[in-house]
């Protein structure tokens, strides 16, 4: 099913991002971003709010196009694919949105069944079995008749996770899977990501600013800020050798190499201006 993480002892990259430049509303988000996601790994992408983590996932999924540089998934250049090619690739990657993005007019069962019904001609009995298996994996087989509005945030995210894996993808991207959850649900999600990664032989990309959770499940971590990767490595390596910046981020200190302020003109200039000089 999955081609494993090593070929002749060398790690194979599932996702290769090379020299990606991207700006939004004239503000550069990425300036030469390079990173690899090894196949079969859980790779964490850490970074402060607004650095472009969601943007990165959208670039990998082909929803956004970089101004320069390439993104390869399984060796295929995402932004050179035809529409059909891109859609075929997307069927092999699942994405878990920050909000879950469940279809509000379908119940839990139909939400999970949705990709199957859209993309396959499986008989209804088989669809039922597949959906129940996936719901069982996330522990929500009993919630199959609930509507999305009746789910808690954590449940919605688990349903979305079941839906993301229903087509047996080779890769799943998680956008902020831990945000806004209580500690127990957080732990459940952490465990699920790890478990699914092993059981299904997935490659997982976990985007987050929750340092502790990401450190606890990731095999590799890339820390991004200021338009590029500023540190990468295994969690242990990062803890040992992290730069001042990385340490500030990991320990959660309010000010340091990462400024507390959004870029602005000098403070006194702006204050003086207000006096109508």
């Amino acid at each position, binding site marked *: 099913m999955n081609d494993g993480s090593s070929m002749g002892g060398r790690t194979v990259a599932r996702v290769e991002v090379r020299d990606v430049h991207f700006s939004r509303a004239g503000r550069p988000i990425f300036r030469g971003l390079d990173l690899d996601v090894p196949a079969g790994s859980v790779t964490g992408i850490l970074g402060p709010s607004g650095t472009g983590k969601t943007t990165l996932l959208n670039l990998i999924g082909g929803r956004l196009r970089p101004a320069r540089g390439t993104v390869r998934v399984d060796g295929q250049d995402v932004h050179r694919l035809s529409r059909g090619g891109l859609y075929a690739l997307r069927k092999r990657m699942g994405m878990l949105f920050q909000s879950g993005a469940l279809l*509000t007019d379908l119940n839990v069962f139909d939400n999970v069944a949705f*990709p199957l019904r*859209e993309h396959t001609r499986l008989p209804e009995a088989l669809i039922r079995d597949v959906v129940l298996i996936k719901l069982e994996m996330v522990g929500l087989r009993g919630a199959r008749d609930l509507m999305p509005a009746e789910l808690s945030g954590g449940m919605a995210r688990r349903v979305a996770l079941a839906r993301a894996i229903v087509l047996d993808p080779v890769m799943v991207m998680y956008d902020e899977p831990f945000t806004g959850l209580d500690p127990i649900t957080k732990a459940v999600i952490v465990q699920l990501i790890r478990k699914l990664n092993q059981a299904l032989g997935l490659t997982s990309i976990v985007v987050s600013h929750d340092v502790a959770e990401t450190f606890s499940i990731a095999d590799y971590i890339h820390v991004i800020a200021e338009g590029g990767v500023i540190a990468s490595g295994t969690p242990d390596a990062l803890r040992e050798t992290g730069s001042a910046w990385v340490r500030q981020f990991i320990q959660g200190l309010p000010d340091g190499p990462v400024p507390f302020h959004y870029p602005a003109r000098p403070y006194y200039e702006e204050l003086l201006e207000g006096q109508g000089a």
Partner: protein
Amino acid sequence: MIGWLQLLGRWSLGRVARLGRGHLFLVRTLASLPHLVLRPRLVIRELFSVGVLSLLIIVVSGGFVGFVLGLQGYVTLVRFGAEESLGVVVALSLVRELGPVVSALLFAGRAGSALTAEIGLMKSTEQLAGLEMMAVDPIERVVAPRFLAGFLAMPLLAALFSAVGVWGGYFVGSGLLGVDSGAFWSQMQSQVDFHDDVVNGIIKSVVFGFVASWIAVFEGYDAVPTSEGVGRATTRTVVNTALAVLGLDFILTALMFGNF
């Protein structure tokens, strides 16, 4: 001065860009209509919700407009002793003008705004992005069935509006004001031309249905994905549809009935 010009320039550029997006969007929507042949159930579901949403308001408004036409027509006609022609006046006003125009305005207020809000909310809650990532084209799956349903429902609603209106005019004219019922119907039958009046009215409602549905789905799809943005998009749907329908009505009327 320069700042003002700059603002005007930015505003016009924004307008032109939106117009361009709107047309590209329409092309993509029309291009995905053939897919719906294989999945009629998607359209039927939307047809049901668009139609049912508007049914009550169309019937009630059609009735009242008919009542008023009956009253006003009678008051004017009776001065010339021509109250027998009330049926003609009521039917022509409804079939040619009021049916298509008023039902398009009501459609925008009821179904159009609901379509915009629905699609806009799907955008702001990442459902559309989610569909894209599941390799499902939101235009094909979400937009096109709604557009088609609105387009198909509009002429039916306009016809219903006119029919109820005629009945309302008859109720007031014949039932309350004592116009001869035989004259009411026979004059209507002889004076209302199928091609010139009925078909032209249907053409109008088809055009209005196209424009109203297009505006409704586009405003939703193009909405700023926040609750405020969706609210504004809903308002824009109603305003833009009203303007477009009234403007087009003038053009179509001139083309159909103005002997240039």
